[in-house]
């Protein structure tokens, strides 16, 4: 296993008390696989990514039974050790490429900076050719002239490609992509998704692909993980989650999508809103909004995870397959 996470919890202290942004998260990621993480705002998907990169603010309280990446225990890394991991073993790309790139410096400057950071001691005459190589790898036409551009001269798609180039410059084993296509037009999104898949296969990389868009997740992932209120409520292979999902929230998410609904049918909508993490409901976090919830669901226990046939779900009343 490339990445093993066991019972990861991330809490924050505020003036009104401590609250858990993420609790008891457990999952594994194999080499060369794409894990799609899907969830709505406040579900904790982005915070988890930051924890995997050691980028949480100092006031975050992180506890876990295990947090191992490629044999390294991420829980015990000093800031110095983290710099060996970040960028070189784990790369990250973000949602808005226009704000992720520094507007004051050219693409060349930023790309070369990333290369030098990820290849300590690289001879300076090799940096520029590597930069051009990377740009071709991510499909930038005419790299020699593009490399001298400033970020404001780039389109969203170009900027995202450059961010990908920077992120893979260290040949990381894991790429964390946090909503990388959300801010892009749909035709460009397709290009970027294909590019990511291509790079993943060529470089033997794993990807954690985070998005709120189930449609995108369904196309790119091998395995899907659904998060809600800081917990993983269901996970499994792509086909299982899309076609044989067990958790009512997953069902709700899929049914809320307009997809192939006829305009005469009302859209399914999950009633209510996501819970306030400072005031969590007891028992199952989804029970206040769930059409199948019972008093058992709301009682004071943490709902245990069922594990069966490569699929896990956290529910006392899972959906059974009808017909």
């Amino acid at each position: 296993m490339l990445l093993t996470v066991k019972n990861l919890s991330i809490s924050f202290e505020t003036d009104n008390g401590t609250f858990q942004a993420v609790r008891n998260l457990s999952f594994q990621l194999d080499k060369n696989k794409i894990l799609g993480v899907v969830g709505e705002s406040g579900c904790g998907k982005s915070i988890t990514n930051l924890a995997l990169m050691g980028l949480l603010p100092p006031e975050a309280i992180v506890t876990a039974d295990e947090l191992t990446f490629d044999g390294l225990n991420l829980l015990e890394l000093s800031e110095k050790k983290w710099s060996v991991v970040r960028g070189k073993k784990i790369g990250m790309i973000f949602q808005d490429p226009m704000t992720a790139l520094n507007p004051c410096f050219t693409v060349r400057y930023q790309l070369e900076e990333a290369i030098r950071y990820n290849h300590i001691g690289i001879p300076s005459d090799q940096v520029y050719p590597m930069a051009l190589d990377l740009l071709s790898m991510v499909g930038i036409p005419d790299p020699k002239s593009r490399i001298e551009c400033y970020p404001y001269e780039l389109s969203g798609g170009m900027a995202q490609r450059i961010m990908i180039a920077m992120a893979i410059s260290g040949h990381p084993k894991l790429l964390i992509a946090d909503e990388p296509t959300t801010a892009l037009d749909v035709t460009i999104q397709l290009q970027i998704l294909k590019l990511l898949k291509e790079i993943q296969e060529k470089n033997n990389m794993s990807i954690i692909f985070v998005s709120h868009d189930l449609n995108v997740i369904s196309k790119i992932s091998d395995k899907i993980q659904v998060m809600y209120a800081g917990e993983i409520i269901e996970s499994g292979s792509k086909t299982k989650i899309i076609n044989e999902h067990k958790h009512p929230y997953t069902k709700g998410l899929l049914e809320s999508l307009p997809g192939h609904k006829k305009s005469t049918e009302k859209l399914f909508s999950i009633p209510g809103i996501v819970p306030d993490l400072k005031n969590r409901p007891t028992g199952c976090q989804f029970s206040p909004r769930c059409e199948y919830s019972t008093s058992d669901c709301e009682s004071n226990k943490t709902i245990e995870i069922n594990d069966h046939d490569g699929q896990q779900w956290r529910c006392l009343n899972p959906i059974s397959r009808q017909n």
Partner: protein
Amino acid sequence: MMNSEARTILKANILSKYYVSESMFKPKQTVKALDSVSLELREGETLGLVGESGCGKSTLAKTIIGLEKKTKGSIFIQGREISTFSPKELSSHIQMIFQDPYNSLNPRKKAWQLVSDPLRVKSSASESELKKIAIELIERVGLRPELADRYPHMFSGGQRQRLGIARALITKPKVIICDEPVSALDVSVQAQVINLLKELQKDLGLSYLFISHDLSVVKYIADRIAVMYLGKIVEQGRADAVFNSPAHPYTQALINSAPDFNSSVELSDIPTISGELPSPLNPPNGCHFSNRCPHTNDLCLKEYPLYHNTEDRLVACHLADKKDR
């Protein structure tokens, strides 16, 4: 199903909006954000407007509602040219719902004040009357009336959009421009707001100009659809017909590119459109889509295609022309 005799309630005729930048040091540059756009919205219907960034759909919304001044062409609402209305009069005919729930409500005003603003500006109703009407609407859009005295930061994104909808309804307009009304919302909340919009349309006989980059939402809610690219409408027709048999290659590309969990097509098998949107300062000669279209021929590079009109479908493509000959 709307009958084809439904009256046209909003009409844009060869509407153009150019942005010109003049400076001492550079030659004059013109961006044709809208270039001879003509469309019709029929009473009680939803016209979906789709396209990617830079296509001009937001500019179209702003020009119709008066936030931007048109350069050429005309806009008619209920038969009357829109420039003959003062903004206060216009709000009884057409209003707009904005995209960003965190940005479209004045943070210093209470919910009922925000909702009643359009009415307060044009009528001499007393504060208590305004409050009463506002609270009725707040309930109508699915919010509890006790929330009327709260400030925007106490509402969630979906609730704020509902307030925006209530605000758009208070002057009883017949046409509502929805500028990406659900794009900034979570999926489960999107569905709630879309359902609300449909319900209100049915109950109040509203007509929507529904702008979105999300094809699946437009496919669900629109009766007719117009596809825009680089300031022009490239295809227009009945929504189900356009989605089932798109005539313009760009429309086809849009439909292909939108991922769908229901479809079993693998990522690698989905056809991509290469290249990027050309700069609006310097669109290609001939058809604007020619540098990315898989079917480009010589004619496409030289001449911009005229509209080809068959069976309630308008397409701007030389190949659609040829198909029918």
